[in-house]
């Protein structure tokens, strides 16, 4: 047992779980352009799926989300603007355009897709299409 159980245990478990799926072949069915900006994590929440990406500094107005069939397209522009007459001491933030398509291994209900962007995190809530959900068959 942990001597100091507490708020860090769930974090550690989450980090380990995220690492475990780093080599997942879950998206192998489609051209997912793995490893281009922005990096995506996909979570399952019951029947529905959630794509979460980190897009710090990208304004909501500069983000585009499109859904067609099984494919979700994420595009946008990230700008890093500074006032004139500044001297830069350190530059690590990158600016530019991005466009990424993710093909999921299930049908999406396009009417139910929700996108939320808060604190630099974009979350796409993708409900699985009714026709695609597993049905339980009563055994007689």
């Amino acid at each position: 047992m942990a001597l100091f159980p507490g708020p860090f245990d769930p974090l550690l478990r989450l980090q380990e779980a995220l690492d475990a799926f780093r080599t997942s072949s879950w998206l192998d069915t489609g051209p997912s352009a793995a490893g281009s900006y922005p990096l995506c994590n996909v979570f399952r929440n019951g029947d529905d799926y959630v794509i979460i990406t980190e897009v710090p500094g990208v304004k909501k107005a500069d983000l585009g989300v499109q859904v067609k069939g099984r494919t979700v397209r994420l595009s946008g522009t990230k700008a890093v603007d500074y006032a004139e007459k500044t001297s830069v001491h350190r530059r690590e933030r990158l600016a530019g355009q991005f466009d990424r398509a993710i093909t999921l291994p299930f049908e999406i209900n396009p009417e139910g897709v929700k996108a939320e962007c808060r604190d630099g995190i974009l979350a796409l809530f993708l409900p699985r299409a009714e026709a695609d959900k597993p049905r339980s068959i009563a055994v007689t």
Partner: protein
Amino acid sequence: MEPSQDLALRQKQEVATKEERTVPGRYYAPVTDIYETDNGLMIVMEMPGVTKERVTVDLQGDVLRIEGQIDFSQYKDMEPVYTEYNIGHFVRTFSLPGKIDREKIAAQLEDGVLTLTLLKVLEAQPRRISIS
């Protein structure tokens, strides 16, 4: 900067500290820009997922320590199926030059980007001397 080119990908940098931590969990170094204006220094850090209430900015002597905590309770009930990045708190420390006014450090958080404004002490600000 011209935003016309494609945005390059950068993996998160895990923080390597001299001392080891007593609590588990990974920390990442937020991507940071530092630039100087006429009357101050701006530190701009990317901390996606950190809310205003979870940022701490500490000044101890000359060392400015910025920490951002992630609220990972929203990942409860979510089962990862495919991942490309890991999640962790953010921490980074900077040593300040003597010409910064310790009393006037302001911080602002917007879209996951923390902007710290550090004003120079008056003696260090540029002045134009008028000729009489």
